[in-house]
């Protein structure tokens, strides 16, 4: 065993320090863009690549859930790391806006987008929308001789006991959209009563909203409540899943692109927003197996999405659902009245 002497030690330290240098240099910007993105990794990569090809700007993205994104952007208030938040639902964007963490930008490309999908002052612009659907495993339905659930009420029937999965409203955007849809549709009192009956059939509230896709796809549970893009994505991959929509009407979310306050790369960020609203960009979503409905009417609809373009949607109140106090109250109540009783 060779003795490591002082000089060797110095060398190791210097080599270590030197190897850290390129890391330190990487954080600087110049023809670069840093994004926080909500869609699945594959879609994020497709969008980032598409933008790089078009603009020559080098994008770096971090995929985050809505909650992670908000928390991070708040924590970075004094030193924003990213310029863009992309593909996160409108309620979260409204939370950020009320925190003063957004910068308005009216993109010329937004002119093509219907008024209800964008903020008149440019605080947020919706690039794609998606609604909540019910995913049923076909084998499960066959074995039990059931039809896919046609209504929210169907989900409380005893046949589905222990067979339903949905993202937890406390941690997932999907779960929160589900919760707020029920409250808006049925009203405060009846809504909570419904949630208690519904809870009796729930196998698990998963941590992430997309979690139930795998569970339903592999037949671990019979029914999942998910955003339609996740359901259609699994169908596209060949999982034996059927999608149905509740006849009472379902809630939806609008996935937006926003410019973050104090963006380190404002010029590049605006170019990204402009590009992300074009038909070419939103068509990348379906191309990367993320089946949303583009808000830009000029964009082509994917065949899988077409049958659902006239889905019955409730008039979802984003301002209510996006308010931080409402969110806190709803989640507290959900945890204390629904989750706390589960064993």
């Amino acid at each position, binding site marked *: *065993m060779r*003795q*490591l002497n*002082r000089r060797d*030690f110095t060398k*190791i*330290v210097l080599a*270590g320090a030197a*190897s*850290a240098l390129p*890391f*330190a240099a990487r*954080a600087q910007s110049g023809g670069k863009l*840093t*994004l926080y993105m909500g869609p*699945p*990794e594959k879609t994020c990569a497709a969008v980032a690549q598409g933008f790089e090809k078009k603009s020559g700007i080098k994008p*770096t*993205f*971090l*995929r985050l*859930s809505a*909650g992670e994104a*908000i*928390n*991070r952007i*708040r*924590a*970075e*208030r*004094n*030193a924003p*790391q*990213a310029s863009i938040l992309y593909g996160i639902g409108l309620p979260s964007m409204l939370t950020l806006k009320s925190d003063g963490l957004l910068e308005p930008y009216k993109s010329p490309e937004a002119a093509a987008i219907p008024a209800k999908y964008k903020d008149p002052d440019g605080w947020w612009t919706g690039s794609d929308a998606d609604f909540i659907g019910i995913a049923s495993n076909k084998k499960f339905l066959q074995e039990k001789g059931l039809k896919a659930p046609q209504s929210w009420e169907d989900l409380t029937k005893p046949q589905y006991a222990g067979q339903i999965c949905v993202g*937890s409203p*406390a*941690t997932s955007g999907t779960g929160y959209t589900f919760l707020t849809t029920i409250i808006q549709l049925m009203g405060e009192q009846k809504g909570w009563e419904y949630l208690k009956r519904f809870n009796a059939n729930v196998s*698990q*509230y998963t*941590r*992430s909203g*997309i*979690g139930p*896709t*795998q*569970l339903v796809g*592999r*037949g*671990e*549970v019979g029914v999942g409540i998910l955003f339609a893009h996740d359901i259609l994505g699994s169908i596209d991959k060949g999982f034996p899943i059927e999608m149905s929509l509740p006849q009472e009407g379902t809630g939806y979310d609008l996935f937006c692109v926003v410019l973050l306050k104090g963006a380190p790369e404002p010029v590049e960020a605006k170019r990204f927003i402009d590009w992300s609203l074009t038909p070419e960009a939103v068509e990348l979503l379906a191309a990367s197996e993320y089946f949303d409905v583009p808000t830009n009417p000029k964009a082509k609809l994917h065949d899988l999405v077409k049958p659902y373009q006239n889905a019955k949607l409730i008039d979802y109140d984003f301002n209510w659902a996006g308010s*931080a106090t409402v*969110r*806190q109250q709803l989640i*507290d109540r959900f*945890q*204390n009245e629904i*989750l*706390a009783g*589960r*064993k």
Partner: protein
Amino acid sequence: MTALAAGRGLSEPGRSWALALLYPLAAAIVALFIAYPVVELLAHAAMSDGRVSFAPLARVLSEPYNRQAIYNTLLLGLTVAVLGTILAALYAYAMTRVEMPGKAVWHFLALLPTISPPILMALSLILLYGRRGLVTHELLGLQTTALYGYWGLVVAQVLSYFPFAYLLLLNLFRGLDASLEEAAGTMGAHPGKVLATVSLPLLVPGLAAACVLLFGYSFADLGNPLLLGGDFPVLSSQIYLAIIGQYNIPRGAALAILLLLPAALLFFFQKHLSARTAHASVGGRGALRHPQVRHPAAKAGALVVCGGMSLVIVMQYATVLAGATTRIFGINNTFTLRHFSAVLAGSRNALVDTIGLGVAAAIASAILGVLIAYFVARTRRFGRGMLDFTANLPLAIPGTVIGLGFALAFNHRPLLLTGTAFIIVAAFSMRALPYTIRSGVAALQQIHPSLDEASTNLGATREQTLWRVLLPLLRPAVIAGMIFTFTRSVTTLSAVIFVVSPHWSLVTPTILSQMDRGDLGEAAALSVILVVLVLAVIHGVPRLVGRDWRESA
């Protein structure tokens, strides 16, 4: 004669200006990166509208769901502590007192969980016993969610953390004074009576220390509760959810304080117990070899304990390896390497960053650790007790709490570190600092001060003595500290989950998000790469160290 006198004059502490400068510097670093984040966290939890108030704490305590989480945390910790200690005691006893084959293998396997991220246990448990697990679903035809909750967490945590208790007890068993037992035996007590009246009373403080240690690990674990928690909320996962799900930092901070207080109490209790354990074994070390039990029943029992436990551990790792090399584990078992290629394509940055930052942290922690060890063991500078205490605090603080404290403390000027590599390196190295200090102090205590004096007498300054005489002798301790820091850094999840950024992604949070998405194959492949990497570092950085770094943990 005169030259010698002059030399002594030069070496007076007041003249060794480099060390005089380094001391406040080291103290400042410790204050800034250990004390300040905790203070900041306390401020977030106990302030509202700029005034000191216990309202956030009271609100958190008033909620049934949080009370359930507190109860669950205690229940889980207690179960893991008791079960883990029993297992560890049996294992350690078999290893030290029973003659049986394959001891080196049993030892290696028992320690394997110490070098893998705890979420690896959750991953393999899901693959084996989940709703679609190989054992539960394919072999037994069950479709059960029993894994998700109390029992799944107990198993995952016992497997992850029992090795630490095992090491503690192994040293204890080895150190017990054999002559005491021998004396009892000679005076006519049969082995059972010797065990009950001599050995066990000597072991009680050690067993209690192992319990407390396991309790602390269970408390601090974040990965397993996130993945296996199901309807069983515990405090560490509630902190994460309060912040990530509800965007509520004061609530997260209040919950963090609820987790910190008992963890800190436990730590000091354990320290107290360890001090007593040390008394129990004083003078015994190596005095007499313990007689090895040769009774066939004892041998069989020992083999069952060690073999059974090792088998379970091997199963865990084999499952992860199988999960990484099959298309969809349990459903389509065709061999494939595509998960590895997907990981190397998609998560290469995470791997490179993790290694780079881990190495940087190892260097930082080693340098700081040696300096502080030197000040603590070799000098009588003002406030060194305080420095020692603060630098050792990270032992008492759960990773989630450190991570959250860092995120809160360094996101505003003048200490704006959010999003930089520096904050990650700092979080890594501060968490490992107590270990590097401890191994430095232990090594320094074995070097007789007369060596320092000789060097000083020959005219060297204190810096020269430290640099030329002590440092080469400290080398094994320094390297052990570096390996420890690296291993600990690349496998931690809780401490970094709040500080990763787009420019600096790390492996453990990546595994977590892969599991969230349901990409179990990729998560398994990345885990395999991480385990192989750490094994290579531990065994490949050749055995420059006389002992296993984990034995000082």
